[in-house]
């Protein structure tokens, strides 16, 4: 497995003996001083030069919109892309619960260190200390920034900001705006972005999809995009490209992600030399509304906060189909309270999800499909009164009723785990730069801060940290060397080549003219991924998945059918391109899951569990980031390891008993 990547040619100094091929560029010095020192020593681009520097930002969610706005404010010429009809509709809009910050407004002992510690522990010690510490450090500035933009966070009667608590931690550090935190934060970033668009510092490309990355001499120099309305293929060049394209949970077909969420941009980047970090790390959220039929198009999250007052249970007897009201107390199994007496219903997401799967596998699941457990509020309604429950969860109960037609005030909710978030993503260094110089990855699409499991309310924090407070500094380090280089002309041969690849692929897709729909194949992929690379993974299953995915790929390229033409608004064509990439990414996720023979966070290898059936981590052999390198369509991807060093936090087995 010799390395011959672009990266090495670009960074020959990394070829020295005993040096890893991956340089995470973590600044020296004590953990608490790294970022401060970095900021005061990083190279800068002077204002006059900034104007001549062009930066492409793909994505307008929290990470992309905040980055595009902040870079435009600094004076860079920015182009920003999203596939929706407005940047305000990025998937970040759907985040409900809240955003963490170490403000310690609650005076309950919170601190930057504690937020850092909780995040590293919550991630089951598979994240980089320096990055997580920086995240905790800038968290406070995010709240200030958003308040200044006019984000209407929840407030107390005294007029100060209110906090709530969230799963897996012991302090109250989550800021929120009703059940619509993501919406309000995104609208804040969108407002800043709109201001820059109006000023002419940022050009917005709505309903445009990036379909290829263009690299020149090993550096990211532009993208090829498709205008989704006219079908026109376009070239855009720049000095640097930032991807902020969100997570890839839709590999599973059903997830809580928006319908359009996809992996195309990061997958193209992977194929152009960006390493993919920990692709198999997927978060499966325990409280979602269960599947109701084959027509199901997506799954809806019911906020984690419900577990504060709801009790999770199943009937003790296998196959008990009585109505929940008819099942007496002594015939119910409150399995989370039984198994985890100290955390009870509030165990972290991965633990709660696995436990639900176990009881359903035992045949105790409820509802028509048997793939659901009850979440009941009867006791808390009795204890706190209906009004309190209504005030806390009214909008969620309403949403549940809209979807299921059942009233959760009177009958327990039925919930089941669903794919929710992907911790894996493009490998990035401390600068958030991928292994392709000049290509950056921000927000959910990078692998960086959440290790093997993400704690609630920390994705919004990360997206905004990356965009508002990290990239504006770190990108200077690369651009300082670019001030003399004009932006490459889009007539460059690399643009010709990339455009041709895109056009050929579209033609190939349009010409298959088979019998199955794109969704048929996407659903097949999703079933395989969920079955073998979902909540529980084992070697025989993963090997089977490897074969099945290969078959799905062949079937896809032989038998899908896309109506209409490529030169028009064609949603089937859009889907087809995305699914083609999901299939390949699914295969890489399976390889990664096969490699990682330990259990950690959301990745549960059935071969690696304790006698009580809890996840067993293996720090001796697996304390590393798996960074996969593309080696061609017909070759196995090459594994690169970034060893994780814990200087400050000492990994222990997580226990929530």
């Amino acid at each position, binding site marked *: 497995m010799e390395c011959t990547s672009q990266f090495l040619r670009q960074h020959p100094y990394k070829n020295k003996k005993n040096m890893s091929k991956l340089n995470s560029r973590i600044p020296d010095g004590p953990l608490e001083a790294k970022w401060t020192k970095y900021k005061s020593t990083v190279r800068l681009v002077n204002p006059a030069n900034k104007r001549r520097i062009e930066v492409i930002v793909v994505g307008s969610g929290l990470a992309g919109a905040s980055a595009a706005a*902040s870079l435009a404010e600094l004076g860079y010429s920015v182009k920003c892309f999203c596939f*929706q*009809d*407005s940047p*305000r*509709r990025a*998937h970040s*809009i*759907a985040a409900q619960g809240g955003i963490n910050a170490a403000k310690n*407004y609650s005076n309950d002992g919170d601190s930057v260190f504690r937020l850092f510690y909780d995040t590293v522990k919550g991630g089951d010690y598979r994240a980089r200390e320096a990055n997580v510490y920086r995240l905790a450090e800038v968290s406070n*500035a995010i709240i200030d*920034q*958003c*308040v*200044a*933009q*006019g984000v*209407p*966070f*929840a*407030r107390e*009667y*005294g*007029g*100060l*900001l209110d906090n709530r608590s969230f799963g897996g931690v012991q302090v109250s550090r989550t800021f929120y*705006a*009703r059940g*619509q935190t993501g*919406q*309000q934060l995104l609208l804040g970033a969108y*407002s*800043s972005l*709109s*201001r820059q*668009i109006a000023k002419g510092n940022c050009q917005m490309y*709505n309903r445009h999809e990036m379909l290829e990355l263009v690299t020149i001499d090993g550096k990211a120099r532009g993208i090829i995009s498709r205008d989704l309305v006219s079908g026109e293929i376009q070239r855009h060049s720049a000095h640097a490209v930032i991807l902020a394209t969100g997570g890839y949970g839709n590999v599973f077909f059903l997830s809580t992600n*928006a*319908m359009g969420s996809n992996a195309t941009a990061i997958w193209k980047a992977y194929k152009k030399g960006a390493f993919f970090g920990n692709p198999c790390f997927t978060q499966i959220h325990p409280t979602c509304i269960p599947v*109701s*039929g084959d*027509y199901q198009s997506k799954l*809806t999250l019911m906020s984690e906060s419900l577990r504060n007052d709801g009790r999770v249970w199943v009937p003790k007897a296998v196959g008990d189909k009585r109505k929940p009201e008819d099942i007496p107390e002594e015939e119910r199994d409150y399995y989370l309270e039984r198994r985890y007496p100290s955390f009870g219903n509030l165990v972290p997401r991965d633990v709660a999800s696995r436990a639900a799967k176990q009881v359903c596998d035992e045949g105790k699941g409820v509802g*028509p499909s048997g793939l659901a457990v009850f979440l009941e509020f009867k006791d808390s309604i009795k204890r706190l009164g209906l009004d309190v429950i209504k005030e806390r969860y009214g909008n969620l109960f309403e*949403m549940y009723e809209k*979807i299921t*037609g059942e009233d959760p005030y009177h009958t327990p909710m039925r919930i089941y785990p669903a794919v929710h978030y992907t911790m894996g993503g493009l490998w990035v260094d401390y600068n958030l730069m991928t292994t392709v110089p000049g290509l950056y990855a921000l927000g959910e699409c990078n692998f960086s801060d959440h290790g093997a499991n993400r704690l609630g309310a920390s994705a919004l924090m990360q997206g905004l940290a990356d965009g*508002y*407070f990290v990239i*504006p500094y770190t990108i200077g380090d690369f651009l300082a060397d670019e001030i003399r280089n004009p932006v490459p002309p889009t007539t460059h041969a690399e643009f010709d080549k990339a455009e041709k690849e895109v056009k050929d692929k579209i033609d190939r897709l349009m010409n298959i003219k088979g*019998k199955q*729909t794109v*969704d048929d194949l996407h659903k097949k992929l999703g079933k395989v991924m969920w079955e073998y690379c979902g909540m529980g993974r084992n070697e025989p299953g993963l090997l089977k998945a490897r074969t099945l995915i290969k078959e799905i790929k062949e079937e896809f390229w032989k038998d899908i*059918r*896309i*109506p209409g033409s490529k030169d*028009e*608004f064609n*949603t*089937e064509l859009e889907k087809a391109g995305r699914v083609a990439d999901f299939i390949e990414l699914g295969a890489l996720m399976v390889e990664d899951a096969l490699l990682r023979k330990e259990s950690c966070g959301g990745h549960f290898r059935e071969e690696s569990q304790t006698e009580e059936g809890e996840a067993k981590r293996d720090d001796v052999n697996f304390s590393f980031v798996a960074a996969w390198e593309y080696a061609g369509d017909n070759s196995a991807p090459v594994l690169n390891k970034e060893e994780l060093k814990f200087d400050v936090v000492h990994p222990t087995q997580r226990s929530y008993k």
Partner: protein
Amino acid sequence: MSETINVKLKIWRQKNTSDKGRFELYDMPGVSTHMSFLEMMDVLNDRLVREGKDPVAFDHDCREGICGMCSMYINGRAHGLLKGTTTCQLHMRHFENGETITIEPWRAEAFPVIKDLAVDRTAFEKIMQAGGYVSMNTGNAVDGNALPIEKVKADEAMDAASCIGCGACVASCKNASAMLFMSAKVSQLALLPQGEPERYVRVLKMMEAHDEAGFGSCTNTGACESECPKEISIAHIARFNRDYLTASVVSEK
């Protein structure tokens, strides 16, 4: 529990902006009442693709009632008959067996049809770009708690900020006015101290962008409020008008 109904769909089909467009009828037998409206559309499209026909284009993304992407005019109502609900959250249990359901795009001069049920809402972007923000750069903010804000005001600002920008207000207004959309943003920022310094400039600029984009003027019929999936109140329009009046008087001096 699971029931099925048979419905007929009368759907507006329009190949592109310049096409004249027409209604087409589709039979939809055996629709599960648990399906969402958009899942029913998926089933129809799945069938059309298998028959080698062009599926019905429509906008959607989150399918949770928050992104504002979905935009169907169902049986003469923006997002259908159910109050406070977007199309993606509407479920088939609210329809009758044997019913014919008419589905149209938003119709407004400022929202040209792109294809079938998908429209171009760029005009909304222009309004926001004209003044829907607080002019501050990243990194300048003071501590979040430096400026306490009365809870009642913060809550009202949040009510206004709940707008999802779907355009139902424009589609339901006989004048195709975007006053509800615009006033929600103006009101949110007017209620907060952060928005105060630009309060009056903002209304003037946004109003100008509104009219330029081809939206009609507001005649206070209130259709927007009753059709808004987020139940945004027309009280915000009243606040807008007051501020607009003040701003106009000041700017005339």
